[in-house]
C-alpha cells in the first residue's frame, strides 16, 4: 500500500548535546524515596515541643532545608534538587504518616487494588527491576528506598502518629463534627475520593516578581522592618511577630541551603579536569553565591534564583499543582535587558529553558496509593503563557516563543504549558503554540482569559488591571491569582454517579447497602430530580464542612511559612496563609466529576418515562439495578435518546440546570478562611474509580463503566454530530461561575496538518471562546489511542479519520484498514 503521508511534521530534538544527556539520564533513572528531609524535620520537631506553632513550623522546615545535602550533576547549569536522587520523592510524615506505616505492611496497596489502577511502565518498571538485584527495597509499588532510609522513614512515620496534620485533623473532625459518620460512609461507598491529607498543598503561585526584584535579603529586610514597627499589645500582635520571625528563620535557612550549593560548585570546580566545565562550575558558584542574598542581575541569575525559590516552596509542603505562573511575563525584563546588551543568545536561553523543563520533571511525589492512582503520578505544574498586561495589551513576547520551542524540543511531562487566550495575542505566538499541540504531547491547553477575568471580578472583586496582569494557572486547569492567593486546596472529589444512585434508591447505596439520608424512592422525574438535588446538597456541604476541620488541623501542624512570606499580603498583614494573610482567600474549591452522566440519565427519564411513557421510572430503576440484563430493547432505546454534546437544547437545558444548582450549593458554604467555597469541575483520573463503584445508570452506562471526564466533554460515543456541535453544547453553560474546568477533544494528525491545519485549530478555539467557553485541550491521536479504539470501539464512536472527501468513523472501518491507519499514524507522529 502507498505511504504517501509525509514524515513527522514537527521535528523535535533537544537543542544541545547537554540537554540530550540530561534527558537520557532522567529517562533511565528509577524512582526513589529520600528520607533526608523528613529526618531533619523530625529531629527539629522532637526538640521544639511547646513552641508557638508558627515558630515551630518555621524552625522544623528551616532546620531541615539548611541541612539538605546539595547535589550537582554532570552538565547541569541550573542547579538545585528536591532530594539526593534524580527522581526522588520526600515522604512527608508530618502531613500523614499512617499510610506510610500501612505501606510498610503492604496493606493499603492490597485494599485499593480493587478500584485503582496505577502506572507501571518506565521508571516504575526500572525500580522494580533494580530492587530485585540490589540493596534497595521496593516501596509503595513505585519507589526504591535504601535500607537505612527505610528504617529512618519508619521511625519518623511512627513519631508523627498523633502529630501529623491528618491525625490532628482527624481528631478534630471525628470527635466534633456531627456528620463524621456520613463522611466515613462516603468513603466506603465511593461517594468521595480517599482522604487527601498526604498531599493537600499546592495550586498556588508564589510572588516571583517581587523576589526577583529585591532578592531574599530584600524580603528579610521587609520582615525586620515590620518587627521593628510592631509592639505587642495583644495576642494578635504577638502572633504577627512570631510569623515575621518565622519568615526570617526560613529565609535565612534557604540562603544557607543556596550557599551550600555555591560551595559545592566551587569545590567541584577544583577537581574538574575539563576546563570548560571547570569554568562553568565557577560561574555557577558565583551566581549562587550572589543570589543567595541579592536580586539577580541577568537572565541566568534570575532563572537560577527562580529555581531555588520555586524548589524551596516545593520542599516546604506536600505539593500538587504548585506552579510557576506567568513565567514569560516576570522573566521577560531579564531576557530583554540581556538581549539588548548582547550578553545572551536565544540559543542559550532555549537551552536553559529545556534544562528547566527537565528540572521540573525530575520532581516526584509520594502519596497514598489511592491518590497516586487518581493523579496518575502527575505533579500538575502549570506554566501559563500569553495573556494580558495591566493595560490590557497582549503579554506574549520573544521569551514566550522560546518557552514553546523548548517544550517542542525537549519532550518532558512537566511543566505542562497553558495559553491565556485573548484575541490580541500575536499570530506568530499562536501558531507556535498550535505547532506544540501538533507534536501530540497534549499541551498547551487553551484557556479563555476573558472568562476568568469575569470570574475574579465577580468573586474576589480585585481591580481589573490586577486581574489581567496576575491571572495565572495553579494546577491542571484551575486558575488563580499569581503571588496573592491561598492555595486551591480541596478535599478531593464528589461522585455524581453515586449521588444519583442514592437518589434512585431512597438514599441507600445499592453496592454497600449503606444508608445515607433517607429519601422517598422517586416515582416521577420531578421527584427524582429533587431527590438528586437533596443528596447533592448534603454530599457537598458535609464534605466542605469536614474539610474545614482538616484545614484547622493544617493550621496547627503544616502552616506554610516560606510560601506565606512570598504571597501578598501576608507580610503586610503579619499573617500566615492559614491565618488569612493572602489577598485572595476564596480559592478553595469543591470538585466533582461525572455530571454529564446524570444529565444524560435525566434526559432518558424525561424522554422514555415522561414523554413516550414507554415504561415507569420504577422499571427503569430496576433495569439499572439489574445492570440492563434482560433489558436489551430498553437499553438500546436509552442509548439512542439524545445526549449532551450534540447541540440539543432538550438535553443541554438539563445540564444548565444541574450546573447552576451545583454552583449554588458549593458557594453556600464558607471555607476555613471565611470566604465562599468556589465551584470547580475536572476529573483527573477520578472518573474511572468513581465509575467502578457505581451501578448502571439510566443513560445506558453499564455498572462499573467509567464516568464522563471533565466538565463539558461528552460521554464517549454519545456525540454523534461532530466536534462543532460538542462545542456549541459546551458553550451554553456559564463558565464564569467555576474556577477551572476542562474539555478534551481528539483529532487525527491529518486534521491539523500544515499551516492551514494550525490556523483551523486556532479558528476553532477562537470561535468557541467567543461563546464564552473556558478551556480546550487537544489530543492529537497517536497510534496507541487508535489501538485502544480497536479494543474499545464504544469509547471512540465519534473519532473520524479525516481525509479529503472521505466519510467514515474509525471504529466502523475493518481491522485491516484500522491497522493500516495506525501504521500511518505512527509515520505522521
Amino acid at each position, binding site marked *: 500500500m502507498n505511504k*504517501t503521508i509525509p514524515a513527522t511534521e514537527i521535528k523535535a530534538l533537544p537543542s544541545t548535546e547537554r540537554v540530550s544527556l540530561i534527558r537520557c539520564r532522567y529517562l533511565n533513572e528509577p524512582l526513589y524515596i529520600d528520607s533526608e528531609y523528613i529526618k531533619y524535620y523530625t529531629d527539629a520537631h522532637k526538640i521544639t515541643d511547646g513552641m508557638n506553632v508558627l515558630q515551630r513550623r518555621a524552625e522544623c522546615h528551616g532546620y531541615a532545608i539548611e541541612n539538605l545535602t546539595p547535589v550537582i550533576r554532570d552538565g547541569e547549569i541550573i542547579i538545585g534538587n528536591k532530594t539526593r536522587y534524580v527522581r526522588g520523592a520526600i515522604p512527608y510524615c508530618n502531613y500523614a504518616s499512617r499510610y506510610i506505616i500501612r505501606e510498610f505492611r503492604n496493606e493499603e496497596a492490597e485494599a485499593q487494588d480493587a478500584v485503582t489502577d496505577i502506572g507501571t511502565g518506565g521508571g516504575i518498571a526500572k525500580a522494580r527491576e533494580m530492587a530485585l538485584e540490589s540493596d534497595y527495597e521496593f516501596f509503595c509499588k513505585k519507589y526504591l528506598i535504601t535500607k537505612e532510609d527505610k528504617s529512618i522513614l519508619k521511625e519518623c512515620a511512627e513519631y508523627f502518629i498523633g502529630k501529623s496534620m491528618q491525625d490532628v485533623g482527624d481528631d478534630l473532625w471525628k470527635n466534633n463534627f456531627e456528620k463524621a459518620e456520613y463522611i466515613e460512609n462516603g468513603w466506603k461507598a465511593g461517594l468521595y475520593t480517599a482522604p487527601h491529607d498526604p498531599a493537600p498543598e499546592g495550586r498556588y503561585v508564589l510572588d516571583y516578581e517581587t523576589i526577583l526584584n529585591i532578592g531574599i535579603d530584600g524580603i528579610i529586610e521587609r520582615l525586620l522592618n515590620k518587627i521593628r514597627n510592631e509592639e505587642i499589645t495583644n495576642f494578635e500582635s504577638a502572633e504577627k511577630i512570631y510569623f515575621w520571625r518565622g519568615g526570617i528563620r526560613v529565609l535565612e535557612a534557604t540562603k544557607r541551603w543556596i550557599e551550600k550549593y555555591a560551595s559545592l560548585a566551587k569545590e567541584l570546580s577544583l577537581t574538574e579536569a575539563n576546563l570548560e566545565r571547570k569554568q562553568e562550575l565557577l560561574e555557577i558558584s558565583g551566581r549562587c553565591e550572589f543570589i543567595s542574598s541579592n536580586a539577580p542581575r541577568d537572565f541566568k541569575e534570575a532563572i537560577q534564583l527562580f529555581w531555588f525559590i520555586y524548589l524551596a516552596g516545593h520542599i516546604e509542603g506536600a505539593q500538587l499543582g504548585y506552579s510557576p505562573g506567568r513565567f514569560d511575563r516576570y522573566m521577560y525584563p531579564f531576557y530583554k535587558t540581556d538581549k539588548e546588551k548582547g550578553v545572551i543568545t536565544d540559543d542559550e536561553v532555549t537551552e536553559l529553558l529545556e534544562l528547566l523543563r527537565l528540572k521540573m520533571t525530575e520532581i516526584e511525589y509520594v502519596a497514598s496509593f489511592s491518590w497516586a492512582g487518581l493523579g496518575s503520578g502527575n505533579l500538575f505544574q502549570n506554566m501559563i503563557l500569553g495573556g494580558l498586561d495591566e493595560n490590557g495589551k497582549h503579554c506574549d513576547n520573544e521569551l514566550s516563543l522560546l518557552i514553546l520551542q523548548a517544550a517542542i524540543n525537549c519532550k518532558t511531562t512537566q511543566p505542562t504549558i497553558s495559553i491565556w487566550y485573548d484575541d490580541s495575542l500575536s499570530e506568530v505566538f499562536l501558531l507556535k503554540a498550535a505547532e506544540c499541540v501538533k507534536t501530540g504531547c497534549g499541551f498547551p491547553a487553551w484557556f479563555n482569559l476573558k472568562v476568568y477575568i469575569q470570574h475574579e471580578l465577580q468573586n474576589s472583586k480585585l481591580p481589573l488591571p490586577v486581574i489581567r496582569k496576575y491571572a495565572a494557572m495553579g494546577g491542571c486547569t484551575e486558575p488563580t491569582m499569581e503571588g496573592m492567593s491561598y492555595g486551591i486546596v480541596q478535599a478531593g472529589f464528589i461522585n455524581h454517579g453515586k449521588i444519583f444512585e442514592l437518589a434512585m434508591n431512597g438514599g441507600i447505596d445499592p453496592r454497600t447497602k449503606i444508608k445515607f439520608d433517607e429519601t422517598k424512592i422517586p416515582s416521577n422525574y420531578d421527584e427524582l430530580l429533587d431527590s438528586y438535588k437533596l443528596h447533592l446538597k448534603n454530599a457537598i456541604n458535609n464534605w466542605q464542612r469536614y474539610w474545614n476541620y482538616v484545614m484547622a488541623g493544617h493550621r496547627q501542624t503544616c502552616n506554610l511559612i516560606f510560601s506565606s512570606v512570598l504571597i501578598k499580603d501576608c507580610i503586610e498583614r503579619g499573617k500566615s496563609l492559614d491565618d488569612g494573610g493572602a489577598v485572595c482567600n476564596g480559592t478553595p474549591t469543591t470538585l466533582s466529576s461525572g455530571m454529564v452522566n446524570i444529565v444524560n440519565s435525566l434526559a432518558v427519564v424525561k424522554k422514555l418515562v415522561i414523554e413516550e411513557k414507554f415504561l415507569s421510572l420504577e422499571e427503569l430503576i430496576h433495569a439499572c439495578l439489574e445492570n440492563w440484563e434482560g433489558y436489551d430493547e430498553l437499553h438500546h432505546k436509552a442509548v439512542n435518546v439524545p445526549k449532551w454534546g450534540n447541540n440539543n437544547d432538550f438535553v443541554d437545558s438539563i445540564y444548565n440546570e444541574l450546573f447552576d444548582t451545583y454552583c449554588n450549593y458549593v458557594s453556600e458554604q464558607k471555607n476555613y478562611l471565611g470566604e465562599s467555597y468556589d465551584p470547580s469541575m475536572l476529573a483527573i483520573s477520578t472518573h474511572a474509580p468513581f465509575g467502578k463503584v457505581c451501578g448502571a445508570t439510566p443513560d445506558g452506562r453499564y455498572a462499573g463503566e467509567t464516568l464522563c471526564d471533565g466538565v463539558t466533554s461528552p460521554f464517549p460515543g454519545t456525540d454523534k454530530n*461532530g466536534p462543532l456541535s460538542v462545542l456549541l453544547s459546551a458553550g451554553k453553560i456559564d463558565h464564569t461561575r467555576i474556577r477551572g474546568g476542562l474539555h478534551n477533544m481528539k483529532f487525527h494528525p491529518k486534521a491539523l496538518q500544515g499551516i492551514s491545519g494550525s*490556523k483551523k485549530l486556532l479558528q476553532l478555539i477562537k470561535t468557541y471562546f467567543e461563546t464564552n467557553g473556558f478551556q480546550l485541550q487537544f489530543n492529537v491521536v497517536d497510534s496507541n489511542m487508535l489501538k485502544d479504539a480497536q479494543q474499545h470501539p464504544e469509547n471512540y464512536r465519534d473519532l473520524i479519520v479525516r481525509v*479529503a*472527501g*472521505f*466519510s467514515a468513523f474509525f471504529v466502523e472501518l*475493518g481491522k485491516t*484498514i484500522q491497522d493500516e491507519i495506525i501504521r500511518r499514524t505512527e509515520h505522521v507522529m
Partner: protein
Amino acid sequence: MSCDKALVFDIQDFCVQDGPGIRTTIFFKGCPLKCIWCSNPEGQNIYPELFHSIALCKKSHKCLTTCPYNAAAIGTTGYPDFNRNICKECNSKDCVNTCYNDALKVMGQSYTVDEIVEKVKPNIPFFKNSNGGITLSGGEPFLQYEYVEKLVNKCNESGISVGVETCGYFNWSDVSSYINNFEFVYFDLKTFNEEIHKKATGKSNKKILSNLKKLSVDFSDKIIVSIPVIPDVNDNEIEIKNIAGYCKELNIKKIRLLPYHDYGREKYSALGMNYKMLDTKEITSDILEAFKSIILSYGIECWVE
C-alpha cells in the same frame, strides 16, 4: 427523488480538507460514475441502502428474526448476509431499529433545503471566523441539481458560503445558471485517456472535459482540479502532463493531487458490494512530488492532500 428533498448519506463537520476554513461537508447520495477506487461507495446509488458494519456486529442475528421479508441469512463467515434486492425495496427499517449493537444503519436520508440549512446554521460562527462554509460532496451533488440550486441560493441568503466537489459528469445546461453561486468548485479529472476512463469509471470523459472547458470560460478562478492519483490508472507522467496542459489551456490555476487510499475498502462489504482495487502498487511520496513538479512547471499551483 423530488427536487424538494435530497438524499444525503452523511453530514460531517470540522472537515478541514474540503476547502478553506472550517467546513461542514454534505455528502449527496448517487453518482453517474462508478470509479473502481471509489472511497465512498455508499455515495454511488441514488436510493437508501442498508449498511452493515462488521466491526460493530456481534452476530446476535437479531436481524434474521426481525426482518419482515426474510432478507437476512447467516453467511459463511457467521455474519448476516442480506438480499440487497429485497432491502432496496424495504421501508420498514425493523432490522436497524432492533440491532442493539448499532451495526446496521440506512445510508441515505432525505433532507429538505430548510432542514440542511437549519442543521448547519449553528456552525456559522465557526465559518465566519475561518472563512469556511459548507462543501457539497458525495456522490455527485449535481445529480440532484434542482435541489442543489435551491440549497446554494438559500445558503447564500443565510450568509453561508458554499463550495462543491464534482466528478464533472453532468449536463451543463442543468447547472450553468447558478454555478456562479459557488465559492469554489473542486472538479475531478481522473484521466485524459477516454478508454481508460471508461474502464475505470464506466463513463467516457468527453462530457467531463467539455464541462470543464465551459466552466472555465467565466469561472477559471473558482476551479481547483482534483486528480486522484490511482495506481495503473493515471500514475504516469504522460497523464499528468496531459491534464496539466489542458488546465493551462483553460487558464485554470490550481490542481490538487489526492493519492489513492483504500480506507473505503471495508465499506464495500458493508454494502454488499465488491472492491475491485486489490493488490495495487504503491503511490510513493516521490511519485507525488514528481507529479507536483511537473504541474508547477506549467505555472499552476499544486499541492498534495
